[in-house]
Protein backbone atom coordinates (compact mmCIF):
# COMPACT_ATOMS: atom_id res chain seq x y z
CA UNK A 1 0.00 0.00 0.00
CA UNK A 2 1.29 3.42 -0.85
CA UNK A 3 0.12 6.88 -0.02
CA UNK A 4 -1.39 7.19 -3.42
CA UNK A 5 -3.75 4.29 -2.80
CA UNK A 6 -5.32 6.20 0.02
CA UNK A 7 -5.30 9.45 -1.88
CA UNK A 8 -7.08 7.89 -4.82
CA UNK A 9 -9.72 6.33 -2.59
CA UNK A 10 -10.11 9.66 -0.89
CA UNK A 11 -10.38 11.46 -4.23
CA UNK A 12 -13.08 9.05 -5.34
CA UNK A 13 -15.02 9.64 -2.14
CA UNK A 14 -14.61 13.38 -2.55
CA UNK A 15 -15.81 13.37 -6.12
CA UNK A 16 -18.78 11.22 -5.29
CA UNK A 17 -19.63 13.55 -2.44
CA UNK A 18 -19.46 16.57 -4.75
CA UNK A 19 -21.57 14.72 -7.26
CA UNK A 20 -24.17 13.97 -4.65
CA UNK A 21 -24.26 17.52 -3.45
CA UNK A 22 -24.62 18.85 -6.97
CA UNK A 23 -27.22 16.53 -8.31
CA UNK A 24 -29.43 15.23 -5.52
CA UNK A 25 -32.71 16.94 -4.94
CA UNK A 26 -33.13 15.99 -1.32
CA UNK A 27 -31.49 17.89 1.51
CA UNK A 28 -30.68 14.73 3.44
CA UNK A 29 -29.02 13.23 0.42
CA UNK A 30 -26.95 16.39 0.18
CA UNK A 31 -25.99 15.91 3.81
CA UNK A 32 -24.83 12.42 2.97
CA UNK A 33 -22.71 13.83 0.19
CA UNK A 34 -21.19 16.28 2.60
CA UNK A 35 -20.41 13.45 4.98
CA UNK A 36 -18.62 11.67 2.16
CA UNK A 37 -16.56 14.78 1.50
CA UNK A 38 -15.67 15.10 5.15
CA UNK A 39 -14.71 11.45 5.30
CA UNK A 40 -12.41 11.86 2.36
CA UNK A 41 -10.75 14.79 4.10
CA UNK A 42 -10.30 12.84 7.30
CA UNK A 43 -8.89 9.94 5.38
CA UNK A 44 -6.42 12.29 3.75
CA UNK A 45 -5.37 13.66 7.09
CA UNK A 46 -4.84 10.20 8.52
CA UNK A 47 -2.92 9.10 5.45
CA UNK A 48 -0.65 12.13 5.48
CA UNK A 49 -0.08 11.58 9.18
CA UNK A 50 1.02 8.03 8.46
CA UNK A 51 3.10 8.60 5.35
CA UNK A 52 4.27 12.19 5.05
CA UNK A 53 5.00 13.34 8.55
CA UNK A 54 7.30 11.35 10.83
CA UNK A 55 5.52 8.26 12.19
CA UNK A 56 5.64 9.55 15.78
CA UNK A 57 3.79 12.67 14.74
CA UNK A 58 0.08 11.88 14.81
CA UNK A 59 -1.20 15.42 14.54
CA UNK A 60 -3.04 14.45 11.37
CA UNK A 61 -5.07 11.91 13.27
CA UNK A 62 -6.01 14.52 15.82
CA UNK A 63 -7.12 16.85 13.08
CA UNK A 64 -9.18 13.98 11.72
CA UNK A 65 -10.78 13.51 15.15
CA UNK A 66 -11.60 17.20 15.21
CA UNK A 67 -13.03 16.75 11.75
CA UNK A 68 -15.30 14.00 13.01
CA UNK A 69 -16.45 16.23 15.86
CA UNK A 70 -17.14 19.06 13.45
CA UNK A 71 -19.08 16.66 11.26
CA UNK A 72 -21.22 15.73 14.24
CA UNK A 73 -21.92 19.37 15.06
CA UNK A 74 -22.62 20.13 11.44
CA UNK A 75 -24.98 17.19 11.06
CA UNK A 76 -26.90 18.21 14.17
CA UNK A 77 -27.38 21.78 13.00
CA UNK A 78 -28.08 20.68 9.44
CA UNK A 79 -30.82 18.32 10.49
CA UNK A 80 -32.29 20.89 12.83
CA UNK A 81 -32.45 23.35 9.95
CA UNK A 82 -33.93 20.70 7.70
CA UNK A 83 -36.65 20.01 10.25
CA UNK A 84 -37.38 23.72 10.49
CA UNK A 85 -37.50 24.00 6.70
CA UNK A 86 -39.76 21.00 6.51
CA UNK A 87 -42.14 22.61 8.95
CA UNK A 88 -42.06 25.86 7.03
CA UNK A 89 -42.18 24.66 3.43
CA UNK A 90 -43.53 21.14 3.78
CA UNK A 91 -40.67 19.86 1.69
CA UNK A 92 -36.95 19.34 1.91
CA UNK A 93 -36.19 19.72 -1.75
CA UNK A 94 -33.59 22.44 -1.87
CA UNK A 95 -34.82 23.87 -5.19
CA UNK A 96 -38.22 24.49 -3.67
CA UNK A 97 -36.74 26.48 -0.87
CA UNK A 98 -35.93 29.54 -2.92
CA UNK A 99 -37.77 32.38 -1.28
CA UNK A 100 -34.61 34.45 -1.47
CA UNK A 101 -34.28 34.25 -5.23
CA UNK A 102 -34.21 37.43 -7.23
Amino acid at each position, binding site marked *: MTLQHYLVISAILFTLGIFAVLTRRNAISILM*GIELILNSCNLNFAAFSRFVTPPEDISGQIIAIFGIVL*AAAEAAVFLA*IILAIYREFGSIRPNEVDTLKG
Partner: protein
Amino acid sequence: MEFTLKTFIFYGFALMTVASALLVVTVRNIVHAAFSLMVTLFGVAGLYVFLQADFLAATQVIVYVGGILVLILFGVMMTSGRLEMRIHIERGQLLLGGAVALALFMLLLTVIANTPAWKNRIDDGTALPPTTEKIGELILNGPFLLPFEVVSVLLLVALIGAALISRKEVRD
Protein backbone atom coordinates in the same frame (compact mmCIF):
# COMPACT_ATOMS: atom_id res chain seq x y z
CA MET B 1 3.15 -5.59 -5.70
CA GLU B 2 3.17 -8.73 -3.70
CA PHE B 3 -0.29 -10.02 -3.20
CA THR B 4 -0.46 -10.93 0.43
CA LEU B 5 -3.40 -11.49 2.73
CA LYS B 6 -2.98 -7.98 4.00
CA THR B 7 -3.20 -6.39 0.57
CA PHE B 8 -6.15 -8.60 -0.18
CA ILE B 9 -7.96 -7.32 2.87
CA PHE B 10 -6.93 -3.76 2.07
CA TYR B 11 -8.34 -3.97 -1.41
CA GLY B 12 -11.41 -5.54 0.05
CA PHE B 13 -11.94 -2.55 2.29
CA ALA B 14 -11.14 -0.10 -0.51
CA LEU B 15 -13.60 -1.77 -2.82
CA MET B 16 -16.25 -1.83 -0.10
CA THR B 17 -15.73 1.87 0.55
CA VAL B 18 -15.78 3.00 -3.04
CA ALA B 19 -18.61 0.74 -4.14
CA SER B 20 -20.88 1.67 -1.26
CA ALA B 21 -20.06 5.35 -1.76
CA LEU B 22 -21.12 4.95 -5.36
CA LEU B 23 -24.33 3.40 -4.14
CA VAL B 24 -24.86 6.32 -1.79
CA VAL B 25 -24.89 8.77 -4.67
CA THR B 26 -26.77 6.66 -7.17
CA VAL B 27 -29.40 4.70 -5.29
CA ARG B 28 -32.85 6.22 -5.58
CA ASN B 29 -34.15 5.09 -2.22
CA ILE B 30 -32.88 7.42 0.44
CA VAL B 31 -32.95 4.81 3.20
CA HIS B 32 -30.90 2.48 1.11
CA ALA B 33 -28.52 5.33 0.51
CA ALA B 34 -28.21 5.85 4.25
CA PHE B 35 -27.39 2.20 4.86
CA SER B 36 -24.91 2.31 2.03
CA LEU B 37 -23.33 5.25 3.76
CA MET B 38 -23.00 3.05 6.82
CA VAL B 39 -20.99 0.56 4.81
CA THR B 40 -18.83 3.40 3.47
CA LEU B 41 -18.16 4.63 6.96
CA PHE B 42 -17.19 1.13 8.07
CA GLY B 43 -14.89 0.90 5.07
CA VAL B 44 -13.20 4.15 5.99
CA ALA B 45 -12.85 2.88 9.55
CA GLY B 46 -11.13 -0.19 8.15
CA LEU B 47 -8.78 2.00 6.15
CA TYR B 48 -7.97 3.86 9.35
CA VAL B 49 -7.01 0.53 10.87
CA PHE B 50 -4.63 -0.02 8.00
CA LEU B 51 -3.18 3.42 8.68
CA GLN B 52 -2.55 2.23 12.26
CA ALA B 53 -5.00 4.80 13.59
CA ASP B 54 -6.91 2.50 15.92
CA PHE B 55 -8.44 5.19 18.11
CA LEU B 56 -9.54 7.11 15.06
CA ALA B 57 -11.17 3.99 13.65
CA ALA B 58 -13.20 3.37 16.78
CA THR B 59 -14.14 7.05 16.96
CA GLN B 60 -15.28 6.89 13.37
CA VAL B 61 -17.58 3.99 14.10
CA ILE B 62 -18.98 5.46 17.32
CA VAL B 63 -19.59 8.98 16.10
CA TYR B 64 -20.51 8.37 12.51
CA VAL B 65 -22.41 5.13 12.72
CA GLY B 66 -23.72 5.47 16.25
CA GLY B 67 -24.40 9.18 16.05
CA ILE B 68 -24.55 10.95 12.74
CA LEU B 69 -26.08 8.13 10.77
CA VAL B 70 -28.78 7.61 13.36
CA LEU B 71 -29.42 11.31 13.17
CA ILE B 72 -29.68 11.18 9.42
CA LEU B 73 -32.09 8.25 9.60
CA PHE B 74 -34.18 10.13 12.13
CA GLY B 75 -34.20 13.07 9.74
CA VAL B 76 -35.34 10.84 6.94
CA MET B 77 -38.10 9.29 9.01
CA MET B 78 -39.34 12.64 10.23
CA THR B 79 -39.35 14.51 6.93
CA SER B 80 -40.27 11.92 4.35
CA GLY B 81 -43.35 9.83 3.95
CA ARG B 82 -42.84 6.46 2.39
CA LEU B 83 -43.68 7.85 -1.02
CA GLU B 84 -41.01 10.51 -0.81
CA MET B 85 -38.26 8.08 -0.07
CA ARG B 86 -37.38 8.11 -3.73
CA ILE B 87 -34.98 10.83 -4.68
CA HIS B 88 -35.89 12.93 -7.62
CA ILE B 89 -33.07 13.64 -10.03
CA GLU B 90 -33.18 15.76 -13.17
CA ARG B 91 -31.32 14.60 -16.16
CA GLY B 92 -29.74 17.93 -17.04
CA GLN B 93 -28.61 18.43 -13.50
CA LEU B 94 -27.14 14.95 -13.58
CA LEU B 95 -25.13 15.63 -16.70
CA LEU B 96 -23.82 18.98 -15.57
CA GLY B 97 -22.97 17.77 -12.07
CA GLY B 98 -21.39 14.63 -13.43
CA ALA B 99 -19.23 16.66 -15.77
CA VAL B 100 -18.01 18.97 -13.04
CA ALA B 101 -17.39 16.07 -10.68
CA LEU B 102 -15.52 14.18 -13.34
CA ALA B 103 -13.38 17.20 -14.15
CA LEU B 104 -12.63 17.64 -10.48
CA PHE B 105 -11.72 13.98 -10.17
CA MET B 106 -9.37 14.17 -13.12
CA LEU B 107 -7.78 17.24 -11.62
CA LEU B 108 -7.28 15.49 -8.30
CA LEU B 109 -5.83 12.43 -9.98
CA THR B 110 -3.36 14.61 -11.89
CA VAL B 111 -2.32 16.28 -8.67
CA ILE B 112 -1.93 12.95 -6.86
CA ALA B 113 0.08 11.46 -9.66
CA ASN B 114 2.31 14.45 -10.25
CA THR B 115 3.18 15.67 -6.78
CA PRO B 116 6.75 14.50 -6.24
CA ALA B 117 6.65 14.63 -2.45
CA TRP B 118 3.91 12.04 -2.41
CA LYS B 119 5.60 9.48 -4.59
CA ASN B 120 7.10 6.27 -3.29
CA ARG B 121 5.64 6.53 0.16
CA ILE B 122 5.19 2.86 0.91
CA ASP B 123 3.81 1.31 4.03
CA ASP B 124 6.89 -0.50 5.31
CA GLY B 125 4.82 -2.53 7.71
CA THR B 126 6.53 -1.32 10.88
CA ALA B 127 4.17 -1.46 13.80
CA LEU B 128 3.64 1.83 15.56
CA PRO B 129 2.83 2.08 19.25
CA PRO B 130 -0.80 2.53 20.25
CA THR B 131 -2.06 6.02 19.60
CA THR B 132 -4.58 6.52 22.38
CA GLU B 133 -2.11 7.72 24.98
CA LYS B 134 -0.36 10.00 22.51
CA ILE B 135 -3.62 11.53 21.37
CA GLY B 136 -4.55 12.17 24.95
CA GLU B 137 -1.19 13.78 25.63
CA LEU B 138 -1.40 15.99 22.55
CA ILE B 139 -4.95 17.07 23.15
CA LEU B 140 -4.98 17.63 26.88
CA ASN B 141 -1.36 18.46 27.58
CA GLY B 142 -0.03 19.75 24.31
CA PRO B 143 -0.49 22.04 21.38
CA PHE B 144 -4.03 20.90 20.67
CA LEU B 145 -5.48 21.96 24.00
CA LEU B 146 -6.84 25.25 22.70
CA PRO B 147 -8.35 23.75 19.53
CA PHE B 148 -9.85 21.02 21.68
CA GLU B 149 -11.51 23.54 23.94
CA VAL B 150 -12.68 25.59 20.99
CA VAL B 151 -14.13 22.49 19.36
CA SER B 152 -15.91 21.55 22.54
CA VAL B 153 -17.42 25.00 22.80
CA LEU B 154 -18.41 24.74 19.14
CA LEU B 155 -20.05 21.41 19.77
CA LEU B 156 -21.96 22.82 22.72
CA VAL B 157 -23.09 25.80 20.68
CA ALA B 158 -24.14 23.51 17.85
CA LEU B 159 -26.14 21.37 20.27
CA ILE B 160 -27.91 24.32 21.78
CA GLY B 161 -28.45 25.87 18.39
CA ALA B 162 -29.85 22.64 16.98
CA ALA B 163 -32.19 22.26 19.92
CA LEU B 164 -33.31 25.86 19.53
CA ILE B 165 -33.87 25.64 15.79
CA SER B 166 -35.67 22.33 15.75
CA ARG B 167 -38.07 22.84 18.61
CA LYS B 168 -41.56 23.96 17.87
CA GLU B 169 -42.09 27.67 18.01
CA VAL B 170 -43.63 28.66 21.30
CA ARG B 171 -46.21 31.32 20.66
CA ASP B 172 -47.65 33.25 23.50
